[in-house]
């Protein structure tokens, strides 16, 4: 299997204020060189995505998963690192120029909230037709209608709903419009940012089935961001767990759930509520994540919350190491399963 996407050493650091947090240009003028605090949103992330593969990206809010997918979909410029798509390094193309390249139609995204991500003044038809007009330069009305109808059909959106505005559609129908808009360009890579988070379980099941079918039929690769681990387990071949901007564990989905090696992954999996589960049986994670602003480069990011930390975790940042075939974890004490 060849790789469709290879990320290596991808970083995104946001400076906090132009002149440093809480400082104006006046104080900046007076002072000499000052240190601008940096928020390490994504730090040294490397992974590969195979052709037709689906990767789940999980982690707490603020762990950098949304920043990472915005880097991959090239809506943000990385601070450092390579993003290689089909053998071409797209990390160097400035985000504002990216929409003018051919890659834009090959990498598409489905956004989190189907209500917020649709233009309220565009009908479902207009929304799905927009990328065709902009990226494929389809101007012929008949061709446009054909391709929109085709995309709507693929996502199971009845044609009579196409002239409707978002407020006239239900949550599940809006989710379908969002997916149709993304697949109408026949992308090779589809990035899904919590596509079912705003949906009821009754609708979620149909959307998940639709996504699984689409991947099979269109041969797309998925990057699936979610914090519902049960959903990730069902839909993804491999899972990447992020914590404070770094990948802490990566493994095939079943392996990840049966033998989580990193203490954070273990806590994450134990925290999933289950029908008939007993909350007494688990130890909740104490405290809050460390600050992502100028983190100590020598300290494990999970230090302070980790149940099995030692002095070594404070002085030596654990790097990803292989503990089983296809299974890597960033913990000094990760055991081979």
């Amino acid at each position: 299997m060849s790789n469709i996407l290879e990320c290596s050493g991808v970083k995104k650091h946001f400076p906090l204020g132009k002149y440093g947090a809480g400082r104006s240009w006046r104080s900046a003028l007076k002072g000499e060189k000052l240190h601008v605090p940096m928020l390490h949103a994504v730090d040294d992330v490397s992974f590969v995505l195979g052709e037709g593969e689906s990767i789940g990206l999980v982690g707490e809010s603020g762990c950098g998963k949304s920043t990472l997918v915005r880097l991959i979909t090239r809506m943000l410029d990385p601070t450092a690192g390579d993003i290689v798509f089909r053998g071409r390094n797209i990390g160097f193309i400035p985000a504002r120029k990216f929409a003018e390249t051919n890659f834009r139609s090959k990498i598409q995204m489905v956004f989190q909230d189907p209500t917020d991500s649709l233009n309220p003044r565009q009908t479902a038809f207009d929304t799905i037709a927009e990328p065709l007009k902009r990226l494929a330069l389809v101007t012929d009305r008949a061709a446009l209608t054909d391709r929109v109808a085709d995309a709507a059909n693929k996502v199971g959106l009845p044609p009579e709903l196409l002239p409707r505005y978002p407020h006239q559609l239900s949550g599940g129908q809006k989710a379908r419009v969002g997916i149709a808009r993304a697949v109408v360009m026949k992308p090779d890579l589809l990035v899904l940012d919590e596509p079912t988070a705003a949906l009821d379980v009754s609708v979620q099941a149909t959307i998940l089935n639709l996504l699984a079918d689409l991947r099979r039929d269109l041969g797309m690769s998925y990057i699936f961001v979610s914090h519902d681990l049960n959903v990730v387990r069902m839909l993804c071949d491999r899972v990447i767990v992020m914590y404070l901007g770094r990948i802490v564990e990566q493994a095939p989905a079943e392996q990840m759930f049966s033998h989580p090696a990193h203490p954070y992954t273990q806590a994450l999996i134990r925290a999933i509520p289950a029908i008939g589960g007993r909350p007494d049986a688990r130890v909740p994670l104490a405290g809050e994540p460390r600050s992502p602003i100028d983190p100590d480069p020598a300290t494990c990011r999970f230090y302070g919350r980790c149940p099995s930390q030692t002095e070594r975790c404070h002085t030596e940042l654990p790097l990803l190491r292989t503990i089983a075939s296809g299974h890597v974890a960033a913990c000094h004490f990760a055991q081979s399963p």
Partner: protein
Amino acid sequence: MSSAQDAVPLLSVQDLTLEFRTRSGLVRALENVNIEIRKGETVGIVGESGSGKSVLSFAILRILDAAARITNGAITFGGLDVLAASEGTLQEVRGREISMIFQNPRTALNPIRRIGLQIEDVLRTHTSTLRDDLRKKVIDCLAQVRIPDPERRYSAYPFELSGGQCQRVMIALALACNPQLLIADEPTTGLDVTTQAAIMDLLRELARAHNTAVILITHDLALASEYCDRIAVMHAGHVVETAPTHAIFEQARHPYTARLIASTPKPGGSIASLASIPGNLPDLRRTDLPRCRFIERCERALERCATDALPAVDVSPDHRAYCGNPL
């Protein structure tokens, strides 16, 4: 268990019917809703969005929109007829006897008032705490919900806290007066699973310690199964089934409950095994609403389901389904 059952329930909602008058017609938001909460128990109310869970909790506190009309039924809370009580009496009850945790802690807290002062407001209104003791009491409240460094956090603004911390402040606010009933409306929606577990554990521990009854409104069946003693399932303004938690999952009698359980992702389940519920909630503005509002999504529907009053099927003394053709 039996002694608790014999006792008068803390809260009882009987045949509650509620409508909203809107420009596009009458919305029949709740119809003949029956629910009982006993002292110290945790009851989950689950259902899809739009099924009337939040409206029911607003009705219990009588903080309904001006367009709402309660056309039938009664709400009794510890001997008080909530629907007949004066606004003054209700203000005494709200916050002191019944308090509520809202869905989004960031919007529920006042963004321009220090969190310590917001808790002080509650104490000043509802308790006879001396002015000099207020600050200490607030810091105790914050410490009780395990906010680190409560002395310093006293003067923090909501935007300075994380989502989980804000929800802890909401819990401190709600439990400041040791209420008898706490209504938690989706308290962990939007929080991470790890934070969700910590918040729910905290809520359960504090409710147990003070013998507070909790109504947990959620759309997550798995969450309800872990934290609730009993569960009521709502669909389109009807309570379709109420039962002890284990009975709901072991022998659901209403087809909607069974569907809801089947559509909840389970560890180890495959995507093909995930059932979906066909169709949507019916439009509650329709004048020709069938008697059973699930009829158009139900594969077990009979002809009489549309016209006859829904029979209450008593499976066991504590387990009741409202269905014309139960499983």
